[in-house]
C-alpha cells in the first residue's frame, strides 16, 4: 500500500507536482496518465526517492519513505523503465540476479528464481548468457521486468515501460506481462501517456495535468462520467494521437 499526502515538488523554475494526495491499495494497478510534463514521472520517482519531495509525505506499507535509507527502500520496490534500463555489460542471467545479489541471496536460490521467472515470462533458456544488445526490444522489456520482480517486491514502479516498443509488440508484451499471476498480487504504479494502455491495464487511473490530479477513477467510471471537459477531451483524443 502506498499513501501519498500533500506531495509537492518544486524545481528551480517551476512546480512539477502540487499538493498531490493519493492512496494506492495493495495489489492494485494504478496508472498515472497525462501529457508530457504533467508531473506523473516526478510523482513516481518520489515514491522510490529518485527525486526527493519538497514537502508532503509518502508512506510505503505504513512507513515514511524519508525515514529509511534510499537504497534499502529501492531494493524492496521493483523499478522498470523504458527499454528495460538494462546494464549493457550484464548478461540476462546477471541482470535478473542483480537485486537478489544486493540482498545476499545464495546462488542456489538465485538460480531457482531465475528459472522460475524466465519460464513465466516465456524467455528461452539460451537467452541467459546473452547481453542486452543481442536481444529484441520485447525481450529486453521482459528481462527488465524479470529484474524488477526477482525479489518478489510488494510494489513495482513502471515508467513508460513499453514506450520503446512498436505498437504491435507493445500490445503483445503488455498482455503477456499483465497476465502474470506474479503481477496480479503486486501493487503496480505505471506511468504512461497512452490512453488505450491505461484503459487496458489499470484498476484505477489517476489523470494528471499541470502537477495536479484531475480525476481518479476506474477506467469505466472515467469514460462514463468524466469530471471535466479536460478529462473527456483527453480520453476522446485517443484515435487522433499520432505518436502512439
Amino acid at each position: 500500500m502506498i499513501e501519498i499526502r500533500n506531495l509537492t515538488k518544486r524545481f528551480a523554475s517551476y512546480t512539477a507536482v502540487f499538493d498531490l494526495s493519493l492512496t494506492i491499495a495493495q495489489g492494485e494497478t494504478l496508472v498515472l496518465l497525462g501529457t508530457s510534463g504533467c508531473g506523473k514521472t516526478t510523482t513516481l520517482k518520489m515514491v522510490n526517492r529518485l527525486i526527493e519531495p519538497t514537502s508532503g509525505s509518502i508512506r510505503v506499507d505504513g512507513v515514511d519513505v524519508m525515514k529509511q535509507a534510499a537504497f534499502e527502500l529501492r531494493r524492496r520496490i521493483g523499478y522498470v523503465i523504458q527499454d528495460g534500463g538494462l546494464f549493457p555489460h550484464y548478461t540476462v542471467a546477471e541482470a535478473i540476479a542483480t537485486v537478489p545479489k544486493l540482498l545476499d541471496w545464495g546462488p542456489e536460490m538465485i538460480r531457482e528464481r531465475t528459472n522460475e521467472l524466465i519460464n513465466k515470462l516465456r524467455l528461452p533458456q539460451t537467452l541467459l548468457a546473452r547481453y542486452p544488445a543481442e536481444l529484441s526490444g520485447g525481450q529486453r522489456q521482459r528481462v527488465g521486468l524479470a529484474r524488477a520482480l526477482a525479489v518478489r517486491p510488494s510494489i513495482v514502479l513502471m515508467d513508460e515501460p513499453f514506450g520503446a516498443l512498436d505498437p504491435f509488440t507493445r500490445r503483445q508484451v503488455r498482455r503477456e506481462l499483465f497476465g502474470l499471476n506474479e503481477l496480479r498480487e503486486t501493487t503496480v504504479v505505471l506511468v504512461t501517456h497512452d490512453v488505450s494502455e491505461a484503459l487496458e491495464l489499470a484498476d484505477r487511473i489517476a489523470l494528471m495535468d499541470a502537477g495536479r490530479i484531475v480525476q481518479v477513477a476506474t477506467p469505466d467510471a472515467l469514460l462514463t462520467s468524466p469530471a471535466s471537459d479536460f478529462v473527456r477531451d483527453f480520453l476522446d483524443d485517443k484515435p487522433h494521437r499520432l505518436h502512439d
Partner: protein
Amino acid sequence: MTDFLTFVREHADKLLEQTLTHIGLTAVSLLLALLLGVPLGILISRRSRLAGSVLGIAGVLQTVPSVALLGFLIPVLGIGVGPALMALFLYALLPIIRNTYVGITEVDASVKEAARGIGMTNRQVLTKVELPLALPVIFAGVRTATVINVGVATLAAYVAAGGLGEFIFSGIALSNVNMMMAGAIPAALLAIGFDVALASLQRLSVRKLRIGAVAFIALMPFLSAFYWLPIQQDKLIAGFAHEFYGRADGYPGLQKTYGLNLHPRLIDQNLMYEAIRSGQVDIISGYSTDGRIQAFDLLVLADNRHAFPPYDAAPMVRQVTLNRFPELGQTLNLLAGKLTDSVMTALNYQVDYEKQSPESVARTFLTRVGLYKRPEPRQRSETVVMGSKVFTEQYILAEIYRQLIEGQTSLRVVTKTGLGGTQICFDALRTGAIDFYPEYTGTGLLVILQPSAHTLANLSMQSDSIYDYVQHQFHQQYQLNWLKPLGFNNSYCLMMRRDQAKQLGIKTIEDLVNYMER
C-alpha cells in the same frame, strides 16, 4: 644497413639495458599516473564544478614542452630518475584523468538511473556499472598516455635517467646515424608495440576487458621492476656528456690510455656541473676553460699520459673568404696568443656566473688588450658570416670577433650562433653557409680528419705538432685555413669536487684509476 646491424650487434647489451630502462620508466610513470589520475577522474565526475579546473591544470601541464618541464623540475628534484619520472607522470595525467571523467560521465543516464532505482548504493553504481562501462574509454586514455610516455622517455637521457634516449642523443652529438637509429628504432617499435597491445585489449568485450585491466595493472609493477634492476655502481659515480662518452678522443681514449673502466651515467653537458656540485655524481667530463671550474671549486685531474689531445682554439676560415677579404685574416690574427687558459676561464666565469653579457665581457677584454675600436659609422656592404657552437666560450669568442672585425674593418658581421656540434659547424663552413668559426685543433683532428691509428701513433700529441698537422690537412683537403691560435687550450678533462679529490688523494687521472681499482 650492415653498419647499423653491426652497431646493434656490438652494443646489444647496452641496447637491451636501455630498452628495459625505457620500458621501466614508462611503466613506473604510467602506474603513478593511474594511481592518481583514475581517482581524480572519478572525483571530478562526481563534483562537476571541479572538472574544469582539474582538467585545465592537467591540460596546461601537457602543453609545457618536455625539455622546459625537465628544466623546471631539475632545481627541485635534482638529476636522474626524479625529474624524468615526474615529467612522464605529469604528461600521462591528462589523458588518464580526462578519459576516466569522460568515460564515467558518458555512461547512459538511464542506465545510471536504473542502477540507483533498483537499489545500488553510490559506491555500487560506481564499481558495478560506471567503471566497467567506462573501461574502454579509460583504456583509450592509458593507451594515449603510454604512447606519449614512450616518446617523452627518450628525454630522460638528458638528466642521466637512461633509456633509449642515450643512443639518440649521443648519436646526434656525434653525428653517428647508426647510433641514433639504434635508439630511435627500438623506441618507435616500443611505442607501436604498446599501442597495438593496448588497442587489442581495448577491443575486448566488457567482460574480458575487466580481466584484461586486472592483468594490465598486475603487469605494471613487473614492468616497472626493470627500472630497479641492480645497476652496476662504481665507488665514484661518473656523469659524462653524451658526446664525450662516444667521441674517440673522449671516454674511449681514456679507456685506451689508462685502462679506466667506469659505468658512467650519461647526462646533458649543461646539467653535468649541477650534478657534480650537488654530489649526485663525483666525476664529470668537461672543458678545461669552463667558468664553472672556478665557480664550483672543481679540480681538473691532470692528464699525465696525454689521453686527451691538445685543443688549441683558432679561427678556421674558408680560403675563398680570405682571398676575397685579405683584411679579415690580418684582423683575426691580431688576437693570436692574447687569450691564455686563465684569461679564457675568467671570461667564461664572468658570463656564466657573474651573469655579464658576452658583449660587455668581449668589449672589456678587447679594451684591456688595446684592440677595441669603436666601429665607425659607415656603409657596410660586404658581409662575413661567422658561426659558433652552443656553449658560453663560443658565444664570447663570437662576440670578440664581431667587435674586433667591425672596429678594425669595413666588413659587416652576421653571426650564426647555435650550430649544434662540430659536424654541423664544419658542414656549414665547407658548404659556405658560414665563412669562419672558432675551432679546436684536437677536435679538427679527431672528429673531422679522423686519421688512421697508425698516423695518430706517429703524431706527437704536442700543441705545435697537432696544429701544424691539422692546418696542413685542412688546407689540402678542404681549402680551409686555420689562422693563428688564440693561446688557450680548451681540452677535454675529467674533474672532481676539489674537497673530495683532496680527501681521496686524487690529483691525476692515473690516481683515479688506481683508486677505482683498489
